[in-house]
């Protein structure tokens, strides 16, 4: 295949799901009108959710979900050995995501509450980068199909992808959205990495920070604004911790 005079190789790719909802994989089958072109750019050799073909000669591995069991750790390490490029896809893989909400309670209590003493194979919630080196993090809950396609084009052309450094606020302004903070809603848009096209504020919901922090985000100022608007510390903390996107940046009581 040729593009602008350059011969492109068709990288072999695999998709691997761990502990999560598989919603990120589903995004790939969305935006149906581009599917044929997209699947023409790469050779899908392993994608259990939609194909019975399963080969292990992939060069790029897309990982979704967080890691919670020893067998998942072993499986992930094996994938890392094979893959030249490993992409963590979505909030669960990149951050641990909402799964961390259960880490507020001791693990034995968690298991007892749901399985009433029966044994299940589980463990602490870990993001992919806690187990193996990650080359690229594709953020979001769920990932955006648009950004996935953009990433695939970069990988095929061999160009390093540059994710937006600016916050969601910039995209809100670009789309001429009304500011939901001004409307009295809590919003983490001022400190969250853009790239989602401000889809939540666009739909009258404040940002929940699923894509992680933007660069040089001014957390203190946002906290000050939220307090001024009358949001309680508890309410702010609950929002900030939801996707585990700001751990280590904000202290536990915000």
């Amino acid at each position, binding site marked *: 295949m040729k593009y602008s005079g350059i011969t492109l190789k068709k990288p072999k790719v695999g998709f691997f*799901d*761990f*502990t*999560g*909802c*598989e*919603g*990120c*994989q*589903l*995004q790939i*089958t*969305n*935006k*149906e*009108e581009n*599917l*044929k072109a997209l*699947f023409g750019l790469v050779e*899908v050799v392993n*994608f*259990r*959710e*939609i*194909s*019975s*073909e*399963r080969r292990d000669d992939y060069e790029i591995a897309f990982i979704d979900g967080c890691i*919670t*069991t020893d067998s*998942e750790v072993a499986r992930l390490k094996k994938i890392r050995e094979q893959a030249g490029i490993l992409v963590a896809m979505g909030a669960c893989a990149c951050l641990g*995501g*909402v*799964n961390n*909400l*259960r880490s*507020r*309670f001791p693990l034995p209590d*968690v*298991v007892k*509450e*749901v*399985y*009433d003493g*029966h044994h*299940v*194979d*589980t463990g602490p919630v870990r993001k992919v980068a806690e187990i193996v080196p990650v080359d690229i993090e594709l953020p979001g*809950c*769920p990932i955006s199909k648009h950004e996935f396609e953009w990433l695939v084009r970069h990988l095929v052309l061999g160009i390093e992808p540059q994710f937006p450094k600016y916050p969601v606020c910039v995209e809100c302004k670009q789309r001429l959205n009304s500011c939901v903070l001004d409307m009295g809603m809590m919003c983490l848009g001022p400190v969250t990495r853009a790239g989602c096209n401000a*889809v*939540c504020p*666009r*739909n*009258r*919901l404040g940002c*929940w920070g699923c894509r992680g922090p933007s660069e040089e985000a001014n957390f203190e100022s946002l906290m000050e604004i939220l307090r001024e608007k009358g949001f309680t510390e508890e*309410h702010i903390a*609950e929002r900030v911790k*939801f996707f585990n996107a700001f751990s280590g940046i904000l202290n536990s009581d915000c």
Partner: protein
Amino acid sequence: MTVKTVKSLNIDIKHLCRVEGHGDIRIRVEDGKLAECTWAVVETPRFFEVMFKGLSIEMAPILAARICGICSISHSLASARAIERALKIRIPEPAQKVRLLAMHAETLQSHSLHLFFLVAPDFLNVPSAIPLMQTHPEVAETAVKIKGFANRAADLLVGRSTHPIVIKIGGLTQVPRKIQLTELAKDLDATIPYLWKALDFFRGFKMPDFVRETEFVSLRGVNRYPFIGGDLISSDGICKKEDEYRSMTNEYIVDFSNSKLTRLSRESFAVGALARFNNNYDLLHPKAKEAAEGLNLRPKVHNPYFYNLAQLVECFHIMYESKELLLELIDSDTSEFSIPYKIGRCEGIGAVEAPRGVLYHCHRINEEGKIEKADCVIPTSQNNGNIYYDLHKLVNDLIAQGMEEKEIERLSQMLVRAYDPCISCSVH
């Protein structure tokens, strides 16, 4: 033809493909007898019931969506409905209609993903839908048109097809403008011919011949084919209130599966498209009945492979009813789409018909508006027991017919796939 018995057999399928989530099929035959036959759900649990604890109620529908990537709208709505019923609030009519339309968009997206991407490759002898784009472009085009419409509808109605944005306690954060609804109605009209094409394709696929009588559980529709709330019924004659969901499902834990199983009048029961079809056939849209006639499908159907066809019939119902709902919305005042609420100690249950069957969320709320306890009963956990017992009978039948190992393996996989299991969901 002489029928020879299969003496020994060992089928061990790890992480069955073309289903959502991780499940294993293990079949072992020794001395011509079935020694082991298991549908093992090995998906790792996420413990959502624990995740809900202590959160403000406004977060519940947003967290609930994350239970499932495919049926996130159903989870979000079941959670919101549970809280709204607990708080004794009734959401405005336009919000009810938009929510039902969003459920339709999700069901259409989910059914078409299952029928074309997961099931059709079995009948067309390809490993996935990807080669279909070359080998059967007309099938691929039909899939893309129907699924594409469903996703565009969800994007407009609830902001996004996976993990909806606008569903909140008391209604919605916004409703689409009339002009957008009019555009969607035109888009719908242009998509309907593809549904009839899909009917032609699936009429040509011969479903495997297998029957095991079972109990079918669903919501009971009153004036409409049921999707959001209402009484619970079973084909064995049981009728209960939405609030009695625990005695309708009777969850229990087994060692071989991380999904809990359920039972009612028999060893297992089934939920989903075929259960809804069998229990509420009379309420289907006339066009859906016409499609069912075209497929020779009449209630009560006890062949689980016909889940595929019942899903297709439901796609017709959804499309034609969506058109009516859109016209009603366009012709009505949609300025009220949310109502305020007061927090107090309470408990509520919300049942919806998710694409794979009836889904229940229960939330207990304290005086501060925090969730004290949550419970979710998932459609696929209700089906997992039925799949288990179907698999036993299927393999025994096939052994008796002298079927070869490869064919037993193929038909077993197709059986599980027909239920369209949402395995991550069932473990949650």
